[in-house]
């Protein structure tokens, strides 16, 4: 990916991410988040993570965010009323966030050092990021976490049903 494609894409991602937190209406926030996620999937493609990109769209944009939209519509939420009295808190939060980002970014960007690892300059082998390579790693080295996710999902399903079902008992 060259600078010519990276900068517009990154700018769009940041712009829509800002849209998420600045829009007054939750639906618009959710849509901005959807676009952000979609653009991130595009970026994943540039980073040779094709399967992850597809999953990002299927799981994140296609299911998780739709759930958000579903709840927003179900509860028929209206736009927020802006509140004045929280301004100082907001300023503090923004300042904190900017300072945090700066503190992490400064050494990373200006270190003149490269990240640990061999691979940035060379092109990735054809097998990198394919379903086969990810599956092989997932079912050998990461087989325990993989099994744990099944318990995790079961707990989530159980919990969601317990909390949201209409009637008790």
């Amino acid at each position: 990916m060259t600078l010519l494609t990276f900068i517009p894409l990154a700018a769009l991602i940041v712009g829509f991410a800002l849209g998420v937190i600045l829009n007054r209406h939750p639906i618009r926030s959710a849509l901005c988040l959807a676009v952000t996620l979609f653009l991130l999937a595009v970026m994943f493609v540039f980073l040779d993570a094709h399967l992850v990109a597809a999953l990002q769209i299927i799981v994140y944009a296609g299911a998780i965010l739709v759930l958000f939209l579903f709840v927003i519509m179900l509860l028929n939420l209206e736009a927020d009323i802006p509140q004045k009295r929280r301004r100082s808190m907001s300023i503090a939060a923004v300042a904190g966030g900017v300072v945090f980002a700066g503190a992490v970014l400064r050494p990373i960007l200006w270190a003149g050092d490269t990240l640990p690892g061999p691979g940035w300059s060379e092109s990735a082998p054809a097998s990198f990021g394919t379903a086969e390579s990810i599956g092989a790693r997932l079912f050998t080295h990461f087989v325990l976490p993989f099994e744990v996710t099944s318990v995790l999902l079961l707990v989530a399903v159980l919990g969601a049903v317990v909390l949201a079902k209409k009637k008790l008992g």
Partner: protein
Amino acid sequence: MLIEIAIILLKVLAVLGLVMPLAGALGWIERKGSALIQDRIGANRASIYGFAGAGLVNTLIADPLKFATKEDVIPRGADRLLHTLAPCVNLFPVLVAFAVLPFGNVLIVGGREINLQIEPLGIGVMYVLAMMSLGVYGVVLGGWASNNRWSLLGGIRGSAQMISYELPMGLAVVAMILTYGTLDLQQMARAQGELIWGWLPAWGILYQPIAFVIFLCAGIAESKRLPFDLPESESELISGYFTEYSGIKHLMFFMTDFVEVIIISGLIATLFFGGWQVPYLYASGFEFPWGSSIALPNIAVVLLQVLSFTIKIIFFCWFQIMLRWTLPRFRYDQLMQLGWLGLLPIGFVNIVATALAILALQTT
């Protein structure tokens, strides 16, 4: 470089050139089909000098013209930006999903081998699922931005229905991935060219009949057609999420419906019915199991393949239209029960059974 781009462009044009008129024609076929089933005369005004068959051509031109010249109404209190965006968001992902659908094997032109698939992505079928899962945004946006209760209800119904039925659909696809050992739809289509016992074409439906049924149900639910058309259900919600649309935007919603029918048909054909395969047709021509063979040039083979694929798609489109006018609508709780308590567990069992069968075959 330039030639490659030109080839891709040509492929895109070929696919769109097939899909868009077909989608338009389906509108007419649907009207005719419903008339046929309900034993009445239907869609007979659009004819040329009394010849009703010409109505097809007429519909292809007259319908878009009619929609394009109508006033585009945006209701008061609606979110103007999202209202306009919704139909585009609805149509776009379905159209780009065609990019990985193979419509033929390899065409050889001037020594250059052209893979008859717009983009041979490694993640193939996952890409289609990804694009189809984006289709729900158009429904949600249209429903929400219209400032109309029926629209909102349609949007809510649509979002819940579409994410619910994505799961069984994904499970059916996983079963097919296990069967073929690849994600690439072109590879899947090629694998179906083999023969079982020397004479039976190894189409996916023979291996995975259960996955086929699941995929068919989920596919129809994804395209929101009867018996799963609750997001639109005319008698309850007028037109559901696109009640408040008129003019060209309405046409786009309308088109999306039919394009979805086509992509579902294409997927069914590719996954379960051999894709572009013609039984006993190989790269060099027909080779029948009883020994005789007919040699054919590459171009004829390719044409036959494309024709075969087109016929299969049209057949399944017609099949979906017949379904629509045959079955009554589900109630919403029945819809959810079928998805979550019926298709989903069956899909899981099917995957486990498939995996076990493959394991057993590999170890013996």
